[in-house]
């Protein structure tokens, strides 16, 4: 049985889709079978970030409503053969997602893949609550910035009350993924540092993705971060995060493109 992960944040534009694609590709690289599922009905973008926008025929809604088989809607990645995409519908709206429909698609995917990674839409509406509803674990993506941290806290509340795990009284494991982090600005006191964010949110840290030009480059090219710029700082950070997600113990570092002493000094202080 595969593990279902929801990638969520509340706030938009913090890197949910980028992180879903990067973590998915990194996990698939290890030979595990992975499907990344876009829950952003009406505003899909995971297909673009994965570089599969021209190969979408059927989507999640078609499968939920029984108009297409799951196997017809799944798109196999051209670079990593164990990586698949289940796109969202671009023309329908989120009300087309039903709770029973999502439950059956997720349980079906769970039997076929080692990892089911659900890319949640921003906000706290139907799409977002359904994306987290049947998950086993949550990855909360946050920027070191006040509105993102506040929204993350709100998502923690929702995960603790509106998910299947919460209703069964099991509690859902949550991981914090901090993206767009700039160690130099944080060390100058211009940006919340990792310790602050961890203290405020009190969720275990999955990884720190440094701010980098490489992220835009990857999305321009339609390749997940962990496929395209494999040696770049954010890519290495995503690989580490994926290993931690899979249960490995990996030392927490902030990879950097420039070897800066500044960063090392800062990290020692914060750890």
């Amino acid at each position, binding site marked *: 049985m595969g593990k279902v992960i929801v990638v969520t944040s509340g706030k938009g534009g913090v890197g949910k889709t980028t992180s879903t694609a990067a973590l998915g590709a990194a996990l698939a690289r290890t030979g595990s079978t992975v499907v990344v599922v876009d829950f952003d009905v009406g505003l899909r973008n995971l297909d673009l970030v994965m570089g599969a926008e021209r190969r979408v025929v059927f989507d999640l809604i078609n499968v939920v409503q029984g108009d297409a088989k799951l196997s017809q809607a799944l798109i196999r990645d051209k670079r990593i053969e164990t990586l698949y995409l289940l796109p969202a519908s671009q023309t329908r709206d989120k009300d087309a997602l039903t709770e029973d429909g999502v439950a059956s698609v997720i349980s079906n995917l769970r039997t076929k893949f080692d990892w089911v990674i659900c890319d949640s839409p921003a906000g706290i509406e139907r799409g977002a609550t359904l994306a987290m509803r049947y998950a086993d674990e949550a990855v909360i993506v946050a920027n070191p*910035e006040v509105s993102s*941290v*506040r929204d993350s*806290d709100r998502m923690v509340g929702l995960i603790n009350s509106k998910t299947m795990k919460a209703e069964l009284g099991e509690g859902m494991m949550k991981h914090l993924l901090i993206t767009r982090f700039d160690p130099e600005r944080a060390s100058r*006191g*211009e940006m*919340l540092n990792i310790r*602050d964010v961890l203290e*405020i949110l009190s969720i275990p840290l999955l990884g720190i993705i440094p701010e980098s030009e490489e992220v835009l480059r990857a999305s321009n090219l339609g390749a997940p971060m962990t496929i395209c710029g494999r040696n770049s700082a954010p890519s290495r950070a995503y690989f580490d995060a994926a290993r931690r997600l899979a249960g490995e113990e990996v030392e927490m570092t902030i990879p950097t493109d420039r070897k800066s002493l500044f960063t090392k000094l800062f990290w020692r202080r914060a750890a």
Partner: protein
Amino acid sequence: MRLFRFLRPKSSAPVARERLQILLEYERNLVNQTNLIAVLREEILAVVGRHVTIDPDKVQIRVDRSAELSIIAVGIQIPNETRMTAAAPA
């Protein structure tokens, strides 16, 4: 002292941190409070409903918090034709 102000780093992060801590403490209480109201509402409805016919939409529960004490105000509208009985439920 002002002369040396330019030497100090302009730290806005501690401000962000403090604002978030205060705000989130307040917001987390707010969420817990809404849960408390929902639970109270359900249980009060069940108890009162055993003796009096009530319309669930006409029950109001409010929690007023102040520094020294908090007040839980419960308002239940009962239509005049309803007969109130003190008898224990069968």
